[in-house]
């Protein structure tokens, strides 16, 4: 993947990134390979057309970029430790993310599949609570709004 060196954070078995372009996640899939890994898992969060009854035109994401990168790194390290992962990849895209494209890609590998599934869910749940990234819904009716879930705190 060609990318600005400064935006990458690779520490041993962890790869986190915040990028402004489409996530070329297929180039990430080789990272999780390990001869002792029996299980690889990937999750992609994708912009969808409908939220409740409203039709989304596009989503746009903003980040407190240095802090978000730091939080992703901490999150990946915590997941790696907690679920004995061989590799963790978390890449979040910011800026406009059209329908059908991924805003976030999470991948990991572990000895057995139970840890892979648990880790993917835990990473996504924690990311959505802790990482300073915000989504702006741009609706087809012309309105738009920042999404600040009030139930989270």
């Amino acid at each position, binding site marked *: 993947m060609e990318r600005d060196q400064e935006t990458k954070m690779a520490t041993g078995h962890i790869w986190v990134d915040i990028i402004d372009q489409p996530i070329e996640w297929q180039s990430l899939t080789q990272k999780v390979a390990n001869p002792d890994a029996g299980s690889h898992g990937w999750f992609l*969060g994708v912009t969808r057309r409908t939220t409740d009854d409203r039709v989304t035109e596009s989503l746009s*994401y*903003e*980040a*407190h970029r*240095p*802090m*978000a990168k*730091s*939080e992703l790194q901490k999150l990946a390290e915590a997941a790696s430790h907690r679920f004995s992962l061989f590799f963790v990849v978390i890449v*979040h895209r910011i800026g406009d993310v059209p329908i059908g494209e991924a*805003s*976030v890609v999470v991948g990991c590998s572990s000895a057995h599949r139970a840890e892979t599934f648990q880790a993917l869910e835990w990473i*996504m749940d924690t*990311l*959505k*609570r*802790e*990482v*300073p*990234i*915000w*989504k*702006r819904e741009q609706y087809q009716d012309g309105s738009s709004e*920042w*999404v*600040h*879930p*009030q139930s*989270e*705190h």
Partner: protein
Amino acid sequence: MQLNVLLFAGAKEAAGSDHVTIHTHGEPTASEVLKALEQQHPALSDLLPSCRLAVGNNYVDSDHTVTANDELALIPPVSGG
């Protein structure tokens, strides 16, 4: 003391700026920073009760003491993913 606070998303939109300045007596705690934001920038008052404060790359507790060169950020409820 004069402190600069970075704003994001709905907070940035409400204030019409990507940062605001607050004035405090001495080195405030994080909760005193939030109080000062409410008093000195009423446009933020709706969102403030659900916001957290970050210093540098870390969330801080309400009793954390802020010093002059800290980079402060107001973090509204996040919605990444």
